[in-house]
C-alpha cells in the first residue's frame, strides 16, 4: 500500500510542478513562454532519442523526422476534424498527442525494421536519409501545405502539456531501466551476439526502442504544431536532428538525467546569446584560437600528466587562464584584419556553439557530462552523509 501511496504522491507532485510552471510562464512575455514550452519539448526529444542511442546503442541521427511526422499529423487532423469534433482544447491536444504518437510510431517502425541489420555509421546515414525523404515529400504535398507550410488551428499554448509529456517520457524510460525489462536493451547495446545467445530477440528489442522513441517525439510534435499554430518543412531540417543528437551526446548517452540537463542547457544558451548583439568577429575568431589551444593543452595533460589529482587540477586552471590570455591577445591582433572588424548578432552563433560543443566534447570527454550515471535519491543521501540504501541493508 505504501507503494501506491508514494506513486500517487509523485504523480500529483509532477502534475503540480507542471501547473506551477504554467503559472510562472503566464506572467512572462510570450517570448519567455515559448522558451518554456520549447525547453520541455527538447527534453522529451533528447530523452526519447537517448532511449534509442544511449540505452539501446543504436545510432539514429534523424530524430527530427518523427517530430515532423507528429507535428504534421496534428496539423492535418486539426485542419480537417477539429471544427467537427468541437472538443475542449485540453482534450483535443491530448487526442492529438496520442494520434501523433501513433503515426510517428508507425514511421519509427518503417524506419527501424529494414535498417536494423545495419551497423553504426550506416544506420546513422540511413536514419538521416529517411528524415530527409520525409521532409522532402512533405514539402511537395499540397495537402500538407507544400513548401509554405500548414496553418494549425486552434492555437493551444499550454506550457504544462509540454512538461507533462517530458516528465512522462522521463518516467517511462526510468521505469524501463529500473526493471529487468530494461536489461535486454542495455545488453543489445553492449554485445548483440552475446545478447542473442542469451535469448534476447535483438531485432525486436531495437524496433521497440525505435518505436517508443519515435512515439514520444511524435507527441512532442503535436504540441509544437498547436503551440506555434503552424508547421512547415524548414522547422524540421537536419540541423534540428543534429541539435538533439548534440544534447544526447553532451548529457552522456545512456544517462536520462544527462539528457535532461543537456537539453535545457543547450536550449537555453543560444537563446541567451540572442541578447548579445554586436559581437565583434575578431572576438569570435580569437575564441576559436583560444579554445583550440586550450583543447590541445588539456588533452596533453590528460594523456601525459601522471601527478596527483590536485596537481592536475592546478594545471587545468592554468590552461584556462592561459586560454583567456590568448583570447585577449588574439582579439587585439585580429582586430586589425579588415574583414574581421564587423559585428555580428548572437543569434548567428547558435549552431557554431553546438558544433564546437560536439567537437570539444568528443576530444575531451566523449562520455558526455554524466556518462552512464543517473540521478538517484541514494546519491543525494550520500552527499548529506546519510547512509545509502545499500549501506543500510548490508
Amino acid at each position, binding site marked *: 500500500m505504501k507503494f501506491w501511496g508514494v506513486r500517487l504522491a509523485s504523480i500529483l507532485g509532477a502534475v503540480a510542478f507542471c501547473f506551477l510552471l504554467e503559472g510562472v510562464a503566464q506572467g512572462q512575455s510570450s517570448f519567455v513562454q515559448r522558451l518554456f514550452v520549447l525547453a520541455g519539448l527538447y527534453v522529451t526529444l533528447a530523452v526519447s532519442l537517448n532511449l534509442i542511442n544511449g540505452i539501446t546503442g543504436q545510432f539514429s541521427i534523424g530524430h527530427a523526422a518523427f517530430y515532423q511526422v507528429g507535428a504534421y499529423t496534428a496539423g492535418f487532423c486539426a485542419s480537417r476534424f477539429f471544427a467537427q469534433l468541437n472538443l475542449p482544447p485540453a482534450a483535443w491536444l491530448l487526442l492529438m498527442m496520442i494520434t501523433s504518437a501513433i503515426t510517428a510510431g508507425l514511421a519509427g517502425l518503417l524506419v527501424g525494421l529494414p535498417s536494423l541489420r545495419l551497423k553504426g555509421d550506416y544506420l546513422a546515414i540511413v536514419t538521416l536519409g529517411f528524415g530527409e525523404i520525409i521532409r522532402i515529400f512533405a514539402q511537395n504535398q499540397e495537402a500538407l501545405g507544400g513548401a509554405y507550410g500548414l496553418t494549425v488551428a486552434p492555437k493551444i499554448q499550454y506550457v504544462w502539456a509540454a512538461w507533462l509529456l517530458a516528465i512522462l517520457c522521463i518516467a517511462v524510460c526510468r521505469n*524501463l531501466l529500473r526493471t*529487468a525489462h530494461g536489461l535486454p536493451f542495455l545488453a543489445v547495446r553492449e554485445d548483440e551476439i552475446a545478447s542473442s*545467445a*542469451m*535469448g534476447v530477440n535483438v531485432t525486436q528489442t531495437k524496433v521497440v526502442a525505435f518505436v517508443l522513441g519515435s512515439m514520444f517525439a511524435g507527441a512532442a510534435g503535436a504540441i509544437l504544431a498547436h503551440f506555434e499554430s503552424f508547421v512547415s518543412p524548414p522547422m524540421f531540417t537536419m540541423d534540428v536532428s543534429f541539435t538533439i543528437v548534440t544534447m544526447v551526446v553532451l548529457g552522456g548517452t545512456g544517462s536520462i538525467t544527462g539528457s535532461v540537463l543537456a537539453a535545457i542547457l543547450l536550449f537555453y544558451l543560444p537563446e541567451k546569446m540572442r541578447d548579445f548583439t554586436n559581437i565583434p568577429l575578431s572576438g569570435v575568431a580569437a575564441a576559436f584560437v583560444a579554445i583550440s589551444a586550450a583543447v590541445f593543452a588539456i588533452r596533453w595533460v590528460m594523456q601525459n600528466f601522471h601527478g596527483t589529482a590536485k596537481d592536475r587540477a592546478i594545471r587545468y586552471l592554468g590552461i584556462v587562464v592561459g586560454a583567456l590570455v590568448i583570447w585577449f591577445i588574439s582579439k587585439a591582433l585580429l582586430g586589425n584584419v579588415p574583414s574581421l572588424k564587423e559585428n555580428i548578432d548572437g543569434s548567428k552563433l547558435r549552431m557554431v556553439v553546438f558544433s564546437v560543443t560536439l567537437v570539444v566534447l568528443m576530444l575531451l570527454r566523449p562520455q558526455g557530462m554524466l556518462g552512464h550515471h543517473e540521478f538517484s535519491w541514494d546519491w543525494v543521501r550520500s552527499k548529506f552523509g546519510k547512509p545509502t540504501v545499500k549501506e543500510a541493508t548490508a
Partner: protein
Amino acid sequence: MSLLQLDQATIKFGGLIAVNSVSFELKKGDLFGLIGPNGAGKTTCFNLITGVYKPTSGKITFDGKEIGGTPANKIANLGIARTFQNIRLFKSLSVLENVVVGGFLRHKTPLISALAYLPNVIKETESLKAEAMELLKIVNLDKVADVRSADLSYGMQRRLEIARAMATQPKLLLLDEPAAGMNPQEKEELNAMVKHIRDEVGLTVLLIEHDMRFVMSLCERIVVLDAGKEIAAGPPDAIRSDPKVIAAYLGEAV
C-alpha cells in the same frame, strides 16, 4: 537418451570448408569434450549449434527438434546456452545484471507493465535478481555482484560467463575454452564446478578446450577435429593413445 545430434554437419565459407561432415551425438548427462588444433573448426561447430551460422548441409537435432539455421535467440529459448572463446560480457553492466540478462528469457510480465512500473514487474525483477544471486554463489562471485563486469579479473569474468549461461536454465551448456588464461588452482576449481553443474544441476555439458590435462580429467567422451574433419572419437584413454590425434596435435604430454 539423445540430446544433441550432429549428422554430417557442414559449413562452407566461400571455398573454405570450415566444418566438414561432422557427426557426433550427446546423451543427456554427458560431459563431452571437443578438441583439436587451432583452426580445426571447434568454435565454428559451436556457432552452428547455437545458430550463429546456418549449416550449408547436414542436420543438427536437439531434443528431437531440428535446429539447423534457427536464429540464435530461439535456440537459447529451446535450451542451449554457451560461453564464448573471447569473453563476451556486457561490459558496462554489473556482475549481477549480466546474469539477470541470462535469466530474463523466462520472464512473464509484458513490457507495457514495466513501462508503467507495476507491482508484478517489480516482484518479477526481484525474483530474477534473487535467482541470479544463487547462481553467483555457485560460481563464487556473489561478493562482487555490484562490481562492473569489465573490472573483474580474467578468471572471474570466465566464471561470470558460465553463471550467465546457466541463468537461462539450459538443458545443454556449451563452454568455449572455459579454462583459458586460468592458473592451475582456478582450473581445479573450474573442474569441480563443471562436475558439480552436471551432477547437481543436471546439465549436459559440451566443452572446447586446449588444456589436455583438464579435458582428460573432466570429460567422459571426446571428439577430435582437425581441419574441419572428425578424426577420432571415444573415451579419454582411447583418444590419448590414438596415433591420428597425436599426429594432428603434438600437444602437451598427458
